[in-house]
């Protein structure tokens, strides 16, 4: 574990898939342009050469169909990974994700499992505009029967994907397209992760920042700047938003007395509303020294213009400002 290596988030996802395919015959991958093209974001790259076109399958542009095929394959002994090219296209596949995959184990009284992993990138920042930049995690977190993972770095991208592949339930892995090309220090082997286990990304005492996906690193950067103004921010990455590691969050909030919830997605009805409501209902509520505060994307579709796009989602400086204001509230 002491040997660190540098790898991108996309490479970590790829390595985890390769490991899983090597260790488990049941694992295979399908999606649009995951074969020779190497994936729209280059994530699959040469996997089709290494594992063949039977196990790395290029599909037609039929998101509902391929998720449904994943469900059917998962029901019958396989461990499919379905890649949806942009998470926005989950809209096409909602029936199979929500009405089928999520509910089947329940509806059939436990006779069958659906160990299906759906990987897909969300998020803005590439100028791809409103139909290619959404962060839709809140939808899926709301659906009983699904698990939802949001890796914020390369190690988690690998570890959580492997954990997802070991889970007998449908797991949605929401990657982030801006992270794909980023390099991270990664241990020689992906440490074993458990779905439902969050992590304190940075310790602190004055306020708790809970953030997901790309907002985790923005929050850590913000925390470093805050430290220079004498504010000590703890940053928590839930890693899995469903199931949610609420104890980890509550414990931190109780210690710091202040909490800032940061998400990229549009504010209204977003995932951090759930975190806020859960804190408000918990014993930690009594420890709050300031109101729970959210910092979220604007309630707008993601715009094309780079200037507008940047303004639409929380940036480091926004987090710094919001955290400072919160600590200012006694």
């Amino acid at each position, binding site marked *: 574990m002491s040997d660190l290596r540098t790898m991108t988030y996309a490479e970590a996802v790829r390595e985890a898939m390769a490991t899983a395919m090597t260790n488990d015959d049941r694992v295979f991958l399908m999606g649009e342009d995951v074969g020779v093209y190497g994936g729209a974001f280059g994530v699959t790259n040469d996997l089709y050469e290494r594992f063949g076109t039977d196990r790395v399958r290029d599909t*037609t542009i*039929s998101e*509902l169909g*391929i998720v*449904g095929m994943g469900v059917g394959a998962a029901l019958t002994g396989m461990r499919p990974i379905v890649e949806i090219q942009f998470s926005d296209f989950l809209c096409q596949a909602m029936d199979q994700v929500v009405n089928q995959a999520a509910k089947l184990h329940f509806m059939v009284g*436990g006779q*069958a499992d659906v160990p299906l992993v759906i990987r897909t990138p969300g998020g803005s920042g590439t100028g791809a505009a409103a139909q290619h930049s959404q962060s839709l995690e809140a939808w899926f977190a709301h659906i009983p*029967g699904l698990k939802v993972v949001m890796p914020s770095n390369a190690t988690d991208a690998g570890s959580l994907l492997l954990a997802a592949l070991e889970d007998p339930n449908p797991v949605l892995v929401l990657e982030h397209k801006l992270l794909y090309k980023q390099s991270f220090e990664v241990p020689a082997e992906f440490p074993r992760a*458990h779905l439902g286990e969050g992590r304190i990304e940075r310790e602190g005492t004055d306020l708790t920042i809970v953030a997901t996906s790309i907002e985790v690193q923005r929050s850590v950067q913000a925390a470093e700047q805050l430290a220079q103004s004498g504010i000590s921010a703890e940053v928590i990455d839930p890693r899995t938003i469903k199931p949610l590691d609420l104890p980890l969050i509550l414990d931190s909030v109780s210690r710091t007395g202040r909490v800032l919830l940061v998400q990229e997605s549009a504010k209204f009805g977003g995932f951090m509303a759930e975190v806020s409501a859960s804190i408000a209902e918990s014993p930690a509520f009594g420890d709050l020294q300031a109101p729970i505060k959210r910092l979220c994307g604007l309630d707008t579709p993601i715009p094309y213009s780079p200037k507008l796009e940047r303004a639409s989602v929380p940036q480091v400086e926004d987090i710094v400002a919001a955290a400072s204001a919160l600590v200012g509230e006694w």
Partner: protein
Amino acid sequence: MAAEQLDEIDAYRTMWRIRLFEEAVEDLYGRGMMHGTMHLSIGQEAVPTGACAALKEGDQITSTHRGHGHCIAKGADLGRSMAELLARDNGYCRGRGGSMHIADVATGNLGANGIVAGGPPIAAGAALSNQLRGTDQVCLCFHGDGAVGEGAWHEALTLASMWQLPVVFICENNKYGMSMSSEKAFKVEHLSEKAAAYGIPGLTVDGNDVEAVFESVNTAVERARAGGGPTFIEALTYRWRGHSKSDKNLYRTREEIAQWRAHDPIAAYAAVLLERDTATQEELNAVADEVRTEIRDAVRFGTQGDEPTVEAMLAGVYAPSPVDARELGARA
């Protein structure tokens, strides 16, 4: 390999099982002992019976909202089926699924589906799994004529044909998708013409002739098993009852219903068996009587089942993960 023979008496019995099971369901529902909604396939029994008879052990099916027949023809236990419809803990789905979600995964019934065309992609996926695992299993996908209007159906056929998967799509064309007539909806003479758009064989058969259904499905299943890819079969049939209990039957005529009732698949097959001297009238009567007893037992099994509990339900939302939940919870 030549097509296997249909076991005639078995087929006759299966049709009666479906018919009497559904009559019992209708009765229970009418007496307020069953809740929810109900989609009966009375009049359509020859399709699931003939089709499932062409399957081997290990073959799979996906089913629909009108799925009692598929379930029974694939070999489900009548008692556990009835118990499910009665919302009991000894039902197939422990009372969680009901009629629209009955499954019997052990016999290869991957489940009814409340979603029109929910099944075809799943069936294609099971077939892909069969292909990848290198088994000779085939998946048979039941769907209605109305399902043909769904994008999901199109995507399933597109993918299944691209990969030459071992799946057979069997369309129970009972002339209506609820109230929309398939003749109005689809601008082809036979729905089976749509198969050409996917480069796969398509054919239309008399869905009230259990042997015709058997033959066509058998051929298709053998083709699929041999690596020849999917087939699309349209079986023409008719549901005697309304779509569900909300149906006032305004979209079809009494005459049409009467005409199709005159083509009762069970009575027709009885006539064939008598003419062929396969069985005597007494023997045929005995089959129906035996089934009547089975159904009575099934209802008794169901009504004697326990009510399901909320605790078990909540524990049943997720399949248990390999990681011990307490290990994580311990920190809380």
